[in-house]
């Protein structure tokens, strides 16, 4: 890579955004994978499009619209499935579609052209302003602090929810808190890979890390490293080959995911002989 590129603020911001987003991705993504809530995460991410529409409509930073929408979707989907006994996939599907519809209507109502809309859908890490970097760093801190404080509750919830309940853990409350962490991670990742591709970065690095980890903490660390590797390498590839950065990051991660699991299949079939 041409060293001069680091002279540009947009590129330094892109590298910093990759590293900061990877922290949230590694922590929350590990929970997404072990608790098997990838589809909910996709639902929260797509509902957040309503927040982007709201941001455009109100003329504010769309990320400020994403925060309430994704948090609201997380809590609503969680409560509907846990308390109102609505099938989880039904609740997700409803919010997924309604959130997108609200976003489309609000953008349609906004006078003039909606700048950078494509980057919110599919990500453009090269357009992350310094202000957003601070927001991402704060959210990282919040996610890390909540995980540190309630790590044992989240672990019990992910491994054996019934036992957690029997042990006096307010499982619904912690489940909602976990979904809120996912919602905040979605806010962070929207800038990197966009709403449509968020689900891949939330699951793939952690899914690969799980293969090599003996503890959840180790999995989080490894997932953070994998995520940083995919983001930075994807950024470099997109720059060299003139491709969309978000999509390049995801394709790279997807290829690594397939390679690791293909390798695993080969090794286990050799052992079986």
């Amino acid at each position, binding site marked *: 890579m041409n060293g001069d590129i680091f002279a540009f603020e947009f590129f330094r911001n892109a590298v910093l955004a990759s590293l900061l987003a990877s922290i949230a991705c590694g922590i929350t993504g590990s929970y997404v994978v*072990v608790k098997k809530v990838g589809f909910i995460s996709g639902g929260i991410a797509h509902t957040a499009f309503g927040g982007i529409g709201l941001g455009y409509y109100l003329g504010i930073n769309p990320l400020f619209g994403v925060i309430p929408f994704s948090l609201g979707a997380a809590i609503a989907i969680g409560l509907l499935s846990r308390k109102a006994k609505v099938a989880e996939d039904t609740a997700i599907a409803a919010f997924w579609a309604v959130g997108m519809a609200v976003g489309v209507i609000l953008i349609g109502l906004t006078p003039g052209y909606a700048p950078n809309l494509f980057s919110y859908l599919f990500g453009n890490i090269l357009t992350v302003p310094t202000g957003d970097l601070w927001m991402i760093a704060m959210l990282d801190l919040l996610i890390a602090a909540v995980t540190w404080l309630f790590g044992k509750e989240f672990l019990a919830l992910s*491994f054996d929810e019934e036992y957690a309940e029997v042990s006096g*853990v307010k499982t619904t409350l912690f489940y909602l808190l976990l979904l809120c962490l996912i919602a905040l991670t979605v806010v962070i990742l929207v800038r990197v890979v966009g709403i449509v591709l968020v689900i891949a970065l939330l699951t793939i690095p952690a899914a690969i890390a799980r293969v090599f980890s*003996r503890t959840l903490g180790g999995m989080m660390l490894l997932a953070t490293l994998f995520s940083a590797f995919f983001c930075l390498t994807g950024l470099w590839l997109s720059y060299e080959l003139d491709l969309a950065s978000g999509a390049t990051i995801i394709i790279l991660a997807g290829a690594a995911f397939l390679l690791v699991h293909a390798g695993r299949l080969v090794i286990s079939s050799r052992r079986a002989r």
Partner: protein
Amino acid sequence: MTREIVRCDRLGVELGGVTVLRDLSFSVDEGDFLAIVGPNGGGKTTLLRVLLGLQKPVEGRVLVFGAVPGRFPEKIGYVPQRLFFDRDFPLGVREAVLMGRMALKTPFQHYNKADRAAADEALGIVGLSALGNRRIGALSGGELQRVLIARALAGKPELLLLDEPTASVDPEMRTSIYDLLDQLKKSITIVLVTHDTGTVSRFVGRVLCLNCSMVMRENPEGAPGGDTARQIYPYTVDLLVHHPHAHDRPESNVKS
């Protein structure tokens, strides 16, 4: 005077509009080893879930340690019938057993040295000290069952509730688990749901027979007889093995 650990008065439970338990009354005193036997669908697991506070009754009154179920989770150790989990879950055996200390901690407290020592001690009790660092997904069915028992013991409970702990293990491991419970009953009150009607008679103090919502018999002699088995099971039953040994039965636990 013996302390009452569990009291159920005219308990009734419905699941999806279907009566699962009805008019069930019994008590468990400190030091008891009670086995609950009966056919599938007889309400055994539901009864345990009520005692754990996971299922609310529609009728009657249940007290566990003198309070509504779920009030004192730190006094109860629970062994589920089986654990459904992802074999790739990144969790060591010792960390799984540490979860048994959860009820003793507040949300902001982390596990400390004493918790780790208690987890190691529990692993020692079930004979799995050497496997503390192994990944939980790498255990055999019998080893996993022992880990679940260790997890229940790690919090040093006063009451141990076990739901068919021998359902998915081989005969050798089954005997080994019963031997372990035989040791534990000296210090912990035990309620055991099981299908091993023949085997349990050698170990338990009392047997509660449940079939489709009613108690058929609370056997004061420590073992279900052939008549009882024929009464509670909805099919023909011949009790082939039944050797209650007087010296195996703890006299202190026998109700008369």
